[in-house]
């Protein structure tokens, strides 16, 4: 077995040398092609294909979209797109992932069907990377297929979806996402279009993503949720994405909700969007039995445009119990440090 370890080390060294050779050959060409297409580009050898894909993807994702035209041309001239499609059909996970990423970065329309097929994979990384690629190729078309999966594929992480939506942009996602949120909220309504997929998903998962939508969609959705929904996670999620003072009347009511998680989020929202008329409401929340509500209310109070440090000190001095006074002192100290 020790010999096996040594033999394996030999393989590792051999692979690394091969990788370095490919890198030494292709990296200058790729870098050169950012500014001009090199005159002579040799065809990509099979043995160099994975390293090429890695280098190309790495460079491509470091560049702004208006800098990539020549780099794309170099990839196609070298035959990297063909290599990527080959990896897609038969390659290990590592190669397939790198290939999917390249085909997306290249906006390779020819690979649409193969990538769409990957969406159904049990492997979450592979299916998510395929979704990203499809959105890169044709966002309008892909969003109709991807949105129901965003709701149902709970193995796609919220953070990765956030990045994907941020890249796609509010123009593309606002409407389909709003529809998906409504569908998820209306669990008892008859199924329509993609609704069957989202009915079993907690709406909060989708609501958190609303921050990548246009503000008018967010306002509409938050108002709808605050008026119609009652469950904790959904309301808390809606309060988190709410940034429109127009919703304040509804938000204020939640500062006296029996669930502290909702009171915390209501205080945060008032802090972001409230005004002088909310001061008294927040001062009374400084006596809340839950520490987090007191803390967020104090922070909200401090962030109101009508409240400065001097006013905070006066409010603290006027407190009749230690809870309110202590938490205000902490928040004032935080403010002074900032």
């Amino acid at each position, binding site marked *: *077995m*020790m010999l*096996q*370890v*040594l033999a*394996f*080390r030999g393989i*590792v060294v051999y692979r690394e040398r091969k990788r370095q050779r490919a890198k030494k050959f292709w*990296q*200058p060409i790729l*870098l*050169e092609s*950012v*500014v001009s297409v090199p005159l002579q580009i040799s065809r990509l050898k099979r043995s160099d294909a994975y390293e090429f894909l*890695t280098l190309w*993807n*790495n*460079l491509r*994702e*470091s*560049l*702004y979209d208006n*800098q990539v035209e020549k780099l794309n041309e170099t990839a196609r001239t070298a035959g990297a797109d063909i290599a990527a499609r080959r990896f897609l059909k038969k390659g*290990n*996970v*590592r190669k397939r*992932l*790198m290939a999917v*990423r390249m085909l997306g970065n290249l906006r390779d329309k020819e690979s649409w069907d193969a990538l769409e097929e990957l969406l159904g994979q049990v*492997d*979450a*990384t592979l299916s998510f*990377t395929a979704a990203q690629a499809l959105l890169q190729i044709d966002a309008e078309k892909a969003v109709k297929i991807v949105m129901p999966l965003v709701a149902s594929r*709970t*193995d796609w*992480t*919220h*953070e*990765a979806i*956030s*990045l994907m939506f941020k890249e796609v942009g509010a123009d593309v996602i606002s409407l389909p996402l709003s529809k998906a949120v409504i569908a998820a909220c209306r669990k008892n309504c008859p199924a329509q279009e993609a609704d069957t997929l989202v009915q079993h998903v907690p709406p909060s998962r989708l609501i958190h993503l609303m921050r990548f939508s246009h503000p008018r969609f967010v306002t509409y959705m938050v108002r709808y949720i605050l008026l119609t929904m009652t469950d904790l996670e959904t309301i808390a999620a809606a309060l988190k994405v709410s940034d429109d003072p127009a919703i304040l009347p509804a938000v204020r009511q939640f500062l006296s909700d029996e669930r502290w998680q909702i009171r915390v989020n209501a205080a945060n929202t008032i802090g972001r969007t409230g005004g002088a008329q909310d001061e008294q409401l927040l001062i009374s929340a400084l006596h809340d039995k839950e*520490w987090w509500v*007191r*803390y967020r209310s104090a922070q909200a109070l401090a962030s109101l445009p009508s409240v400065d440090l001097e006013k905070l000190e006066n409010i603290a001095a006027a407190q009749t119990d230690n*809870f309110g006074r*202590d*938490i205000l*002192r*902490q928040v004032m*100290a935080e403010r002074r*440090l*900032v």
Partner: protein
Amino acid sequence: MTLIDFIVAAQWGFLLFFVFLNGGYLITIFLAFLKLPDYLQHQVLRYKLPRAPGDFLPPISLVILAYNEEQVIVSSIYSLLQLDYPTFEIVVVSDGSKDKTLEVMREEFRLTQFPEAFRYRLAHKPVRTVYQSTIYPKLRVIDKENGGSKADASNAGFNGARFSLVCPLDADTVLQPDSLKLLVQPFLENPETIAVGGTVRIINGCQVQDGVLTQKGLPTNLLALFQIVEYLRAFLFARVGFAAMNALPLISGAFGLFHKESVIAVGGYKLDGLGEDMELVMRLHSHFRLHGKPYSISFVADAACWTEVPESLSGLGRQRIRWQRGLMESLMRNRKLMFHPKSGLLGWFSIPFMFFFEGIGAGLEAVGFLFIIASYALGLMSLDAFVAFIMLAIGMGLLQSVAAILLEEMTFNTYPKIRQLLWLMFAVIVESFGYRQLNSLWRMVGLFRWLFETESIWGEMVRTASWTSKAVGIVDSKRLKAIPYSLQSKAAGTPLLRTKYNWLFKTESIWGKGGGIDSLTVKSPDSMTPIAIDSEKQKSILSSLPKDSATGVGNVATVLADDLWEEAVDEEIEHKEI
């Protein structure tokens, strides 16, 4: 039953024990070989490409437990300040240190008293003062009365943490810049995750500069070297194997990430006893499983932290005896999990494995060896059988160690030089003769001490900290004044094109690029010494680099940041005015 019958039965009994023991280890080895390479294949985009959801990761509270750590605490904090993670805070719990731990922090990080409305949700000794750094907003220090245990300090850290994910760390722990990003993944992938463990690697023999691990190496001290092999076995096999069954019984106290409310729901760390890290994880299992609540406790093999291990026999012996006692205490306190109908593979595999093989098995193993040797010496065992048994026992140990090195080669390849590999192989062979048996003996002592309930005390670990060099901060006013304000660009070549993360540049013969920057090193223009900056600052620098001020190689950008130094000087002046 005659004496001979008894001895024969005992011999068979010990043989059976060794078969089951090694069978158990083989199952975890098999699972690790199955899972780990596949997991790493899935991480390829994260490792090789720059596009990642970094901005959307949940915030984390890092809790450093410090008791008499004046030698390493500043370096550790600088190391953490340079982590590649979007939002985190550092909460240092100074557990009534008798040395200058608090003073060195106060001076280096300009701590000021902070009127925190501290919440005592978990039990611990009273907090004396909370401090806030005036130059690093994400750094706070909780100075509390000494509680005599790590558990007491950890509970204070959980109470003081502001974010919902808490990562308790030892003061001498050095994290890799991407460790947190990797460790948090299970929380993103599965909302039912309540705790995640990372790999602990050994820092003895490595080089750390300004709190950053700059060179991975192997120690020349044999005891530390043997422990590297042990840690590889423990983290690459046992943890990966158990986690694959959602039956991980232990997350190392040196590096784990916990959902704060879950820890608070089970009452935090127990203040009495020694194995507080394992006991907490067992209690979390117990609480969630027996109440039928869905949950997951996971392990991330590529999220690594580096920590110092004892290099003396006495230090190591004390540590192992303590671990053994801690193990037995944790198992016995949560014994209801064993073979409980609701306990799943945890109760039917992990815990029995830990109890019979790692727990009382330690005693049995030592007794077994002695018994077999005595049987042979008294002529009650043939030479063939004796040699076969010894060879089998040592051979199985060797098999596990070599398999661990093979898996390490297949996955992380932490020690890439052939000399290092040979040195590790040497350790594998030598540790089988003497070191392992000594370990069994220490564990047996630990077992006896647990049985006879001698007092539980925490021995002090003697740290050499030979791997670390002095940290350089941005607050050394003498150095700041000596720095010329005008930018003396040392850019290696002509900048060609600005990308999202860096500048492409060209020299006469070499092309360089900075695509996929993972971290940013800011260096002073005169001495090229690194300056610690937080991630927000990194982002702002990256987005506003003047055209001729940056060069980049590989995944690290180097900025000769004259303007940042001017900012630091301004801060310095402002501070003095205050």
